[in-house]
C-alpha cells in the first residue's frame, strides 16, 4: 500500500492543494454561468473572464502529486490546461483570478490569460498553448540546472496529445543523452480534444519513453499517494544525476476540452465513461483514506471553508483590480527584469 508511506500531514497538504484547484475551477465555472446569463440578457457584465479556459477538474491528482514533491526552487512549465499546475506549484491565487479576468494585477499583467499562467517567484515558468511546445523548455531549464551545478529539477507537464509531437521525442532523447534532471509528466486523460488516444497512438506512452532511453512509470491519478510515490522516485533520480523520468498519470477530465460544460452530449466521450471516472474522483478517494486514518471531518471542513474564502477573496481581488490601459499594449516585449 503505497499510501501508507505518506504521513497524514503530507496527505492533508495534498488534499488542500487539490481542493484549492477544484474550488478555484468550480468558481470559474460559476463565473462563466453568471456571465453567460448576462450575455444572454444582452448585458455586458462589468467583469468577465474572456479567454479560452481549459479546466483540470478530475485531473487534480497529477499536478498536486508531482508539485508536492518539488521545492519552490524547482521549476515547472505547462500547457493550455495550466491552472492546476500553477496553483499546485504555489502560484498566487489572486494573480491567477486577476489574469483570467484580464486585469493588470494578473500574474501576466493581462497579457497571457488562462493559457499562459506564470509565476517565476515559485518556479512556475509559464505555459504554452502550442501542443508539445513547452516540453523542450523544461529540458532547457534542466540543462541550466546541470550546467549551474544546482540540484534544481525541472518538470514539463503535458497531455497525451503532446506525445505525438516530434519535439516530445527530440526532448526526451536529448534529456536521456545528457541525463538531465527533468520530469516529463504526461497527464493521460485519454483524449486530445475529442480524439481518443488509441485512435492516435500505436503504442503506450511508457513504451515510447523506453524507445527514447527515458525511464518511465505509470501512476493512477485518482490516487494521490500513487502520484506522490512516482514523483518522489523521479525527483530522487533526477537529483541524484540519474536522468529523466516520464511519469504517465492516468486521469480523466470531467469538463469539456475547453470551456465549462460537460461535453459528453455532443461528443464521442460517453456518459458512462465519465461516471466511472467520477466514482474515482481523486479528492473523494483521498478523503475516504483520510477518514479511515482518523482525520476528523472537522479538519477537512475547516479546510474547505478556508479554501472557499481564499477563492472568493481572489475573485473579489480580480474584480476590484483595474484593467490594463491601452498603452500597456507596448510594454513587456523583452522582459522587465534580469533572468533569475
Amino acid at each position, binding site marked *: 500500500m503505497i499510501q501508507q508511506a505518506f504521513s497524514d500531514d503530507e496527505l492533508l497538504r495534498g488534499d488542500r492543494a487539490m481542493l484549492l484547484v477544484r474550488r478555484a475551477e468550480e468558481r470559474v465555472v460559476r463565473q*462563466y454561468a453568471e*456571465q*453567460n446569463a448576462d*450575455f*444572454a440578457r444582452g448585458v455586458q457584465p462589468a467583469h468577465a473572464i*474572456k*479567454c*479560452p479556459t481549459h479546466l483540470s477538474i478530475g485531473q487534480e491528482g497529477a499536478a498536486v502529486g508531482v508539485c508536492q514533491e518539488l521545492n519552490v526552487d524547482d521549476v515547472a512549465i505547462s500547457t493550455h490546461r495550466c491552472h492546476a499546475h500553477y496553483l499546485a506549484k504555489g502560484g498566487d491565487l489572486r494573480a491567477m483570478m486577476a*489574469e483570467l479576468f*484580464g*486585469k*493588470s494585477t*494578473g500574474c*501576466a499583467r*493581462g*497579457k*497571457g*490569460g*488562462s*493559457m*499562459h499562467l506564470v509565476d517565476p517567484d515559485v518556479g512556475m515558468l509559464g505555459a*504554452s*498553448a*502550442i*501542443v*508539445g*511546445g513547452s516540453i523542450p523548455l523544461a529540458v532547457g531549464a534542466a540543462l541550466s540546472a546541470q550546467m549551474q551545478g544546482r540540484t534544481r529539477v525541472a518538470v514539463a507537464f503535458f497531455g497525451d*496529445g*503532446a506525445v*505525438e*509531437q*516530434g519535439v516530445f521525442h527530440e526532448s526526451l532523447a536529448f534529456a536521456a543523452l545528457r541525463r538531465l534532471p527533468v520530469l516529463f509528466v504526461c497527464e493521460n486523460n485519454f483524449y*486530445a*480534444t*475529442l*480524439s481518443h488516444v488509441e*485512435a*492516435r*497512438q500505436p503504442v503506450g506512452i511508457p513504451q515510447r519513453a523506453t524507445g527514447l532511453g527515458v525511464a518511465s512509470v505509470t501512476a493512477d491519478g485518482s490516487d494521490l499517494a500513487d502520484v506522490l510515490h512516482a514523483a518522489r522516485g523521479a525527483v530522487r533520480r533526477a537529483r541524484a544525476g540519474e536522468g529523466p523520468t516520464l511519469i504517465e498519470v492516468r486521469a480523466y477530465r470531467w469538463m*469539456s476540452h*475547453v*470551456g465549462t*460544460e460537460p461535453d459528453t452530449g*455532443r*461528443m464521442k466521450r460517453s456518459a458512462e465513461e465519465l461516471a466511472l471516472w467520477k466514482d474515482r474522483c481523486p479528492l473523494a478517494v483521498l478523503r475516504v483514506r483520510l477518514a479511515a486514518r482518523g482525520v476528523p471531518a472537522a479538519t477537512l471542513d475547516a479546510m474547505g471553508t478556508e479554501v472557499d474564502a481564499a477563492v472568493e477573496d481572489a475573485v473579489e481581488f480580480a474584480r476590484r483590480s483595474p*484593467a*490594463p*490601459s*491601452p498603452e*500597456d*499594449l*507596448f510594454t513587456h*516585449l523583452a522582459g522587465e527584469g534580469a533572468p533569475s
Partner: protein
Amino acid sequence: MTRLLAYSDALAEATTLAMERDPAVFLMGVGVDDPGGIFGSTTLPHDRFGDARVFDTPISECALTGAAIGAALTGMRPLMVHARCDFLLLTLDQLANHAAKWSYMSGGRLSAPVVVRAVIGRGWGQAAQHSQSVQAALAPFPGMQVIMPATAYDAKGMLLSALTGRWPVVCLEHRWLYGLKDDVPEGFYTVEIGRARTARAGTDATVVALSHMVVEAMKAADVLAKEGIDVEVVDLRSVVPWDRETVCASVRRTGRLVVADTGPRSFGVGAEIAAVVNEELFGELRAPVRRVGLPDVPTPCAPVLEAAFYPGSADLVRTVRALVRGVDHGARGDASAARHDKPFSGAF
C-alpha cells in the same frame, strides 16, 4: 436565384464537390472528424465520405504535412486543415523547404499539389499563440501559393481552384468570416488564384484589403460615403501571386492607397503592395500609401488590450479621411473592435 451560404459551408461544399469529382482528393487534420468539424467546414465531407477519406490525425503537424506532400507526389490530392494558422509554424520546413521546392528541384518532373487550410484566430483572449495571421512569413518562399478568400463565394471557388491546380497552396481563413453568408452557386466553379476582386468601386481612394479586413473596409467605405468620400475596395483574395494589375489600375484612378492587412503592419504583405504601387505609380500618387495592420507586439489577452491591438473600420475611416482631406495623422489602433466579441461558445 440566390442561394445564401455561410463561408464555412462554402468550404465544406467545395471540399465535398472536389471529393466527388476526384477520388484522389482526401481531407485530414487534427479534429476534422469532430462533431464541430473545424468550425463546420469539414462536417459535410466527413458525413459524406466517412473516415476513409476524411480522417483525424495525430498531433504531428510536421510529419503529416510531409505525408501530404508524399501523397501528392504519388497522385493523391491531399487537403490538410489546421484549426489555427499558428500551428503552421511547426510545418514550415515541410511547406517551404519541401512542398514549395519539390517541383523546382526535380526540374519539373514532379508536382506537389498539397492544399493546406488554416484558420486565423481572433478575439476572446486567445492571446499570442492562437491568433496569428502568418501570410507574411509564407509569402517569401517562392513555389507555393497563398490565398485568403474573404467571401463564401471565393472560399468555394478558390478552394476548388487549389484542389484542381498544380501548386502547393496555403489557404488562410479568418475565423470571423466563417459565419458570413454570400450568394454561392451550387455546382462546380473555380475562382482563379491570383486575381483580385473589386468589392466596391470608388474614385477617391483605394483600400486593398485582405481577408477579414475586407469586411472592415466595406464598413469604412459606408461611413466615408456619408462624408462624401468615395472609396474603392479591392479584395486581394490571393497573396501569392497577387494581382498587381488590378491594384495598380485602381490606384492609378484614385491616386490614393491604404492597404488593410489582418497580419502585422511591419514586414507584412502590405509592405510588398506598398512597395510595388509606389514603384509602378511613381509620381502619380496624390498621397502616401498607408498600411493598416497589427502593431509590433504579440497578441495580448485582456479585452482592453485586444481592442487596442486590432485595427478596424474606424482606423480605416480615419486613415482614408486623412489622406483625402490632406491631414494625415497616420494609422493607430483603436477600441472599435471590442464590440465584435461574442459570448464564449466553446469553439472560440
